[in-house]
């Protein structure tokens, strides 16, 4: 545990009795948290526990319905992020708020032009800050060309530029590999040494225990406990978060058979500018096998999935499903042949948000029963089957006519999983299937996948959740810069090995 600098007894932030309601939902109630100045304070809880909403309140994006916020001992009302910034609070969002077409300097300076203008003086300050922490950012480069780690550093410089002393980070490690996480935590410790106070939201308990000075657990919208890392274990934290026993991700006996269900050989894809996006991909999945693909976002996973489902054309190579060459087949033909697809972004690719659930049942399955007969839509068939899915997959909704948008993320995802598992698919391509889904739904989805695997389903699992990969897969491949490197056995692999392969730290590159 890191030693703290600065006065330990003074409070940077104090939240008392915070409550926030949305139509029909209580996001926060009775939240009491004290953040000591000059410390790293972690906020943990499962999805939907209200951490993000709370931090949005602290940053002025939302107004609380009840409660009081005090910064450095003084009560404040925050009407907008501008107020928060004035009080020395800065926030680094999980989804970076950067404009791709603007330069690094422009992104940093936006909204704070009065501090150093937007010209030479501002540029100097940015270079100064970047050098002080070794961020290595070029102020005039377009953000479009930056990688994930660099973008995060731009976000951090953004808040430092505005003189933030209290920095909130929302799931900062969600998109980083273990080595980058270490580097980030080094940065955080340095910032702490300079007197900043850091609050970060996470649900990765090991990381939290490694770097935080205090940990507050949130559950169902309220703060449950604040502890010191020395006093708890990851297990105990998890139990505080869930309030019950954790589901264990590990598996029993192997269900992998000898029958090759799906095979991709020598698949290569170039982008519009002629740059290689995927090179020489070889994938073999047997019936009853889950093949996990691990990798840092942006190394080709999305393109791999798009190519296999037919949304992107491959330049070379063959793809076979049960021995048939499907390389030239369209998405519709592949789906009709029995490939199910759980997309990474359910709002953009998985659902029609403003349509009722029964219409969403048809989406992706427009060529098969029970939704479609010939050219006609079979309404009754779609409705009945939707009801079946709702029941089997425990989708919480008043009925099949409810608009998809009204459901929570977890329930939307459960519905999608149920839909894609219908009709006995031969192969399931699951891309981050439990992203943004609460622990209960996550366990349910894992169970369904395992059950289908027992019945002989082949699954390609792409995920950033290492626990999910290790827990569900029979074999794990790592994708790095468009190539598959390394094949690991989940029983013996560790997050460190995987992380090394995912960043290429193992080989000289």
């Amino acid at each position: 545990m890191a030693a703290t600098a600065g006065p330990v007894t003074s409070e940077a932030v104090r939240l008392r009795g915070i409550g926030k309601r949305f139509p029909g939902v209580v996001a926060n109630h009775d939240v009491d948290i004290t953040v000591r100045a000059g410390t790293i304070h972690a906020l943990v809880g499962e999805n939907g526990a209200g951490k993000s909403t709370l931090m949005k309140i602290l940053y002025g994006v939302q107004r609380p319905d009840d409660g009081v916020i005090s910064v450095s001992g003084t009560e404040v009302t925050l009407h907008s992020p501008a107020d928060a910034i004035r009080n020395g609070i800065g926030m680094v969002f999980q989804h970076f708020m950067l404009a791709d077409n603007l330069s690094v300097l422009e992104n940093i300076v936006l909204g704070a032009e009065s501090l150093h203008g937007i010209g030479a003086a501002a540029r100097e300050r940015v270079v100064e800050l970047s050098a002080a922490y070794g961020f290595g950012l070029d102020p005039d480069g377009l953000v479009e060309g930056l990688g994930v780690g660099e973008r995060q550093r731009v976000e951090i410089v953004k808040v430092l530029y505005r003189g933030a002393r209290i920095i909130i980070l929302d799931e900062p490690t969600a998109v980083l590999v273990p080595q980058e996480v270490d580097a980030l935590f080094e940065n955080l410790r340095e910032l702490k040494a300079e007197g900043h106070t850091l609050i970060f939201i996470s649900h990765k308990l090991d990381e939290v225990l490694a770097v935080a000075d205090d940990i507050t657990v949130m559950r169902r919208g309220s703060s449950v406990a604040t502890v010191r890392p020395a006093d708890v274990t990851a297990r105990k934290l998890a139990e505080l978060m869930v309030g019950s026993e954790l589901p264990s991700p590990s598996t029993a006996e192997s269900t992998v058979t000898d029958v090759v269900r799906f095979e991709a050989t020598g698949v290569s894809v170039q982008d519009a500018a002629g740059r290689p996006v995927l090179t020489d991909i070889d994938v073999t999945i047997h019936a009853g096998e889950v093949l996990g693909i691990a990798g840092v976002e942006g190394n080709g996973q999305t393109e791999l999935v798009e190519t296999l489902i037919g949304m992107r054309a491959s330049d070379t190579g063959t793809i076979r499903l049960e021995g048939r060459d499907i390389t030239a087949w369209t998405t519709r033909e592949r789906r009709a042949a029995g490939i199910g697809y759980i997309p990474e972004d359910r709002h953009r690719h998985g659902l029609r948000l403003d349509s009722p659930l029964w219409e969403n049942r048809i989406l992706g399955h427009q060529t098969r029963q029970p939704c479609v007969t010939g050219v006609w839509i079979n309404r009754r068939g779609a409705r009945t089957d939707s009801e079946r899915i709702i029941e089997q997959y425990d989708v919480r909704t008043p009925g099949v006519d409810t608009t998809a948008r009204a459901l929570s993320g977890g329930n939307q995802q459960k519905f999608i999983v149920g839909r894609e598992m219908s009709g006995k698919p031969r192969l399931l391509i699951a891309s981050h299937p439990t992203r943004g889904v609460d622990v209960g739904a996550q366990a349910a989805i894992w169970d369904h996948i395992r059950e289908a695997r027992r019945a002989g389903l082949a699954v390609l699992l792409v995920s950033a959740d290492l626990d999910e990969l290790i827990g569900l897969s029979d074999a794990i491949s790592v994708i790095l810069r468009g190539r598959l490197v390394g094949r690991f056995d989940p029983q013996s692999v560790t997050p460190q090995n995987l992380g090394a392969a995912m960043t290429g730290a193992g080989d000289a590159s």
Partner: protein
Amino acid sequence: MTWWRRALLSVAAPVLAAVVAALVCTAILLATGDDVSAFWNTMLQWPAERNLVNILNNASVLYLSGIAAAIGFRMNLFNIGVEGQYRIGAFLAAAFAAQAWLPGKLNTVAAIGVAMAGGAAWAGIAGLLRVTRGVSEVISTIMLNLIAGSLVAYFLTRVGVQTGVSTSTKNIPQDSWVGGISLFPGAPDLFGLSLLAVVVGVAFSVLLNRTRFGFDLRATGASSTAAVASGIDVRRMIVVSMLMSGAVAGLIGMPTLFGSSHNYGTSFQTGIGFAGIAVALLGRNHPVGIAAGALIFAFLSEQGNLLNILAGVSPDIVAVMQGVFVMAVVIAYEVVRRYRARLEQAAVADEIGSPATEPATA
């Protein structure tokens, strides 16, 4: 949500918008010192029989235009080019039918086919440009409209005949004319081909809601990303929808062509394309809504013709009323939609009593 509540919400927007439009127009008339009461008396009087027939005729033409626009709108394609497409279609049909290569009604049917093909081809250009070169169909269809005007004018000088001040295609032989339907004795007939509107409306409704193609169309319009992931070939859909939209647009001129004018010339009615877009917006791209919108617009225009004589007010005020109505309606629809979404989210949350879940991002 209960069905009557849903129905109420659906009607709320247009009614509210109509009130707003009426108020705005009254305000304008007051400001310019016109006779407001005479205006309303004229507008609200029950039309004479022959005016009723005109209204129905015009409404059916407007309806076709609205459906043409709506096919595009459903796909998130803004086919502003209905105007040009119907002119091309009407011209081609008139020129073809005048040649009388086929006898009697066969000629008529073939000419209608030619009109649809012409309109479809003209719209197809915009569709292809969009799919192959990424050109926004909004601009390309507008440009095609303007080009169509000049192009048709040019061809009229080549194949047309002078009759008085206007140039037009040769007259269509009488055995190819389509007879009218007499609704009221003494009043002119309803165009026989105005029934096309009914046929097209029913076909549109069935296609949209009951067929796989219609599902694909609506899905692509709602979320092209989800459509692609579900296996829909979005580019093909774009081209096909534009073709269909143009084909229906080609039909717009048919009732008038075969029912009254019997040729296409410089005095043929224009402006129906844009009116159709307005009507489609009014009716929210729904076959029944568009019908209502077409009737309302046709009614307003017809009554407006009397304004000069009976109330001393320029008929242009009707155009203002129609425009304000459209704007008010689309705003009202947005407001109602958001309200309804919030109601539904609240209902869902109540039902399942979910505590700390974030509302799904809007």
